């Protein structure tokens, strides 16, 4: 009896232990043997790729090295940035001007690197502001935002800034449809009647990169999500994923998820150009800002523009076609050959791959299943190359390698799935940590992918790093795609919340990188291009200090005669012509910020003298052995006093 009980007890305990060991294990560490050597970039060596990564809600772009995952730079675009004074200095404030005034912080989602003949050319990076609709251009020689263009007639610029194969155009498709034109004070419930979509085609000057809105398409009112241009045989077409074809205006998570299929909108932009040339476009009065940074005056200017040309797609039956695509598609990605278009229905169980040539045949044969607001809807099967069966849950975005394979991110099942574009066969899947959004293969959206890696940009971080309170860093993973099986190599933290990113071979950018601004080309109106030109001038209540900075002194460093209430502009010119010798400038009590000045550049900090006293200022960038000595004083006298305006450096004649 007793023995039986003991046996029973032992059996129960043993089965508990066995049961416990059957519990599924967490992700833990799943890299294999040689991962470390594949991502190790030895001291003094360089990464193979630049990774240009959107910052999401921080409104910036971050630059990482691949394969090391090291962060090199945060590059401000749509947000002010304390490090460089972007958006704080008088010169850069106009960059963030809009028709709504100064917008200090936006939401940056997508990157497009410029291409020539469908291949990366390393000239510019474009990015979108999702909230207050804008696109920006970044110069890849200076890694600086040099142009920002606001998009009128847009309710949020999500479907942007995707580009054509020779960077002829970049697009800006509205995420939210809104009432447009003269009658905008309408009930929200009149969505179907009054709300419209809008797609802007922004022309890029092939020499200067300068952007202008060439035309806008007025489209049916629903949500436009992502986009890709055709290439090769499909060059001349643009594809947009559309959701909320239900035209819901409330509780979209339910009301915009009813239709079995939404659309991919195919736009024949060459046709649009023809209609435009025939004068079919209508001019509309709008208001939008165009901001340009000049690298010789070191200054941005913002101008307000008042007109766009609009083509209403309902009036031109051969301009736009809808291809049905299952359940609220997000990604809409064109493969390197330009023949296949992958739709990623966020809520769909299959992934359709459309064939451009079949789509063309369907148009030729009028193979339509009906129309939407007068726009032909192609028969699903007629444009379909095939479906990827049981790919995973929640497909979002697809990129490609050079060998005919596609890599799709799955948010819900938190994985990357590799599949063959032609055969539609699933080849491999790897988990991501956790819930991947976009992914990036170097050159993945181009006609000539560089391959080698796929990078996952995840939406959830949880336990991947040491915790830092409720707000965690973002999580990215690097996988090798060189073998048949994808191999996890590296976790690396990212800033903001990366959405889309592109990776480009360092060789296309590295040697073009600017080291200094030649001082002889500095045409800033307040530049002091030598210490002899340093001075202080009063103009009513404005005091302009033409200041120079060179290791290790500021000129002038003693200023007297400033009075309470004066607006003092410190125009600091960095006289250095040596690589990596920036100087900074800060003055006590500045309500604005600090500035950082690159060699040969002039930047301006505005400071209001509020109290009587002697106020120190100094260089904030540790520039040299005598950096701590690089400082000075401003004497502020009472308003209306007669302290003479004086300035000097190194003058000890009057010492008391």
């Amino acid at each position, binding site marked *: 009896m007793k023995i039986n009980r003991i046996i029973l007890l032992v059996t129960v305990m043993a089965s508990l232990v066995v049961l416990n060991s059957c519990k599924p294990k967490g992700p833990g560490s799943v890299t294999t043997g040689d991962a470390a050597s594949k991502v190790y970039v030895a001291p003094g060596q360089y990464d193979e790729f630049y990774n240009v990564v959107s910052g999401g809600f921080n409104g910036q772009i971050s630059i990482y090295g691949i394969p090391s995952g090291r962060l090199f730079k945060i590059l401000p675009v749509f947000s002010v940035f304390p490090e460089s004074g972007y958006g704080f200095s008088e010169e850069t404030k106009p960059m963030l001007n809009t028709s709504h005034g100064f917008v200090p912080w936006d939401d940056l989602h997508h990157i497009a690197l410029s291409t020539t003949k469908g291949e990366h050319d390393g000239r510019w990076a474009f990015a979108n502001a999702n909230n207050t609709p804008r696109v920006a251009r970044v110069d890849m020689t200076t890694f600086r935002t040099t142009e920002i263009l606001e998009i009128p007639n847009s309710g949020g610029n999500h479907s942007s800034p995707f580009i054509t194969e020779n960077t002829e155009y970049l697009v800006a498709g509205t995420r939210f449809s809104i009432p447009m034109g003269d009658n905008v004070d309408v009930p929200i419930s009149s969505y179907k009647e009054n709300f419209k979509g809008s797609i802007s085609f922004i022309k890029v000057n092939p020499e200067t990169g300068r952007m202008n809105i060439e035309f806008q398409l007025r489209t049916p009112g629903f949500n436009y999500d992502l986009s890709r241009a055709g290439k090769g045989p499909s060059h001349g077409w643009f594809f947009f994923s559309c959701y909320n074809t239900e035209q819901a205006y409330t509780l979209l998570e339910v009301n915009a998820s009813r239709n079995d299929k939404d659309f991919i909108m195919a736009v024949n932009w060459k046709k649009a150009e023809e209609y435009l040339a025939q004068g079919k476009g209508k001019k509309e009065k709008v208001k939008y800002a165009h901001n340009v940074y000049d690298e010789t005056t070191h200054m941005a200017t913002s101008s307000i523009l008042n007109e766009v040309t609009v083509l209403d797609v309902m009036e031109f039956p051969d301009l736009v076609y809808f291809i049905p695509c299952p359940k609220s598609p997000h990604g809409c990605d064109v493969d390197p050959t330009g023949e296949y278009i992958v739709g990623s229905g966020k809520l769909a169980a299959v992934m359709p791959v459309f064939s451009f040539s079949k789509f063309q045949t369907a148009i030729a044969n009028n193979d339509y299943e009906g129309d939407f607001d007068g726009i032909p809807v192609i028969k699903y099967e007629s444009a379909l190359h095939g479906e990827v069966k049981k790919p995973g849950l929640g497909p979002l975005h697809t990129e490609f390698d050079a060998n005919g394979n596609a890599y799709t991110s799955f948010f819900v099942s938190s994985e990357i799935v590799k599949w063959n574009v032609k055969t539609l066969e699933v080849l491999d899947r790897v988990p991501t940590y956790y819930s991947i959004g976009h992914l990036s293969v170097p050159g993945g959206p181009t006609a000539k992918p560089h391959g080698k890696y796929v990078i996952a940009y995840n939406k959830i971080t949880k336990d991947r790093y040491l915790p830092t309170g409720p707000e965690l860093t973002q999580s990215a993973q690097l996988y090798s795609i060189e073998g048949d099986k994808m191999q996890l190599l590296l976790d690396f933290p990212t800033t903001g919340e990366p959405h889309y990113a592109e990776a480009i071979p360092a060789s296309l950018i590295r040697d073009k990188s600017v080291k200094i601004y030649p001082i002889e080309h500095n045409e800033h109106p307040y530049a002091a291009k030598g210490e002899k030109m340093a001075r202080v001038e009063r103009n009513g209540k404005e005091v302009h200090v033409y200041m120079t900075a*060179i*290791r*290790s002194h500021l000129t002038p460093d003693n200023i007297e005669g400033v009075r309470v209430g004066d607006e003092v502009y410190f125009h600091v010119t960095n006289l*250095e*012509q*040596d*690589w990596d010798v920036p100087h900074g400038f800060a003055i006590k009590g500045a309500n604005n910020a600090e500035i950082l000045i690159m060699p040969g550049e002039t930047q301006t900090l505005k400071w209001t003298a509020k109290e009587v006293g002697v106020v120190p200022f100094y260089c904030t960038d540790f520039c*040299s*052995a*005598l950096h701590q*000595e690089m400082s000075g004083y401003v004497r502020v006298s009472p308003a209306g006093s007669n302290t003479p305006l004086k300035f000097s450096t190194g003058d000890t004649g009057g010492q008391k």
Partner: protein
Amino acid sequence: MKKLKTSTRIIIAIASLAMISAYYVPLWQILMWAPQYPEGLEMKIWINDISGDVKIISALNHYIGMKHIEVSMFPEFGYMIYIVGALIGVGLLTSLINRRFMLITFASLIVASGIAALVDFYLWGYDYGHNLDPTAPIVVPGMAYQPPVIGTKQLLNFTAFSGPDVGGWIFLVIGIAIIGVLGLEIFKYGKSTR
């Protein structure tokens, strides 16, 4: 009057004409490296100019009280073009006149110019490295910053190298060639032509 071999005359003519290169290529170079200048800094000395990272070198050297390097510091730039011109003239004349004493004169002038140039460079370097501003931010007691005439020297955080540049090497080859043919004329052909 001893005459010269035709081959000697040709070599003298070529050597003289080769000196024209001095007007088109740098003669001397000073290279500097420091921990924070892994890419290095260079200064090139031409027949009448200096080029390279002169401003950066001057900006760094002001910490230890060295003078700003300016073209006006070097009166040599005013007359070096004439000295080299005269050397070329003497060389061509030697080839034409075809007399051994002219070759001896020419060779002596070349050697003398070379020695004079190095002495001059040493004297400039001595002054530049020793004649320091007493109010300089960094004063290292007993330290002088004279650059090496030829070779490498450590000066605080900088490793400095001084040596001939393209033009300097051409001059060296010319010098060796002229002394070489002079030697042949005296010790070999000299006997046989008698």
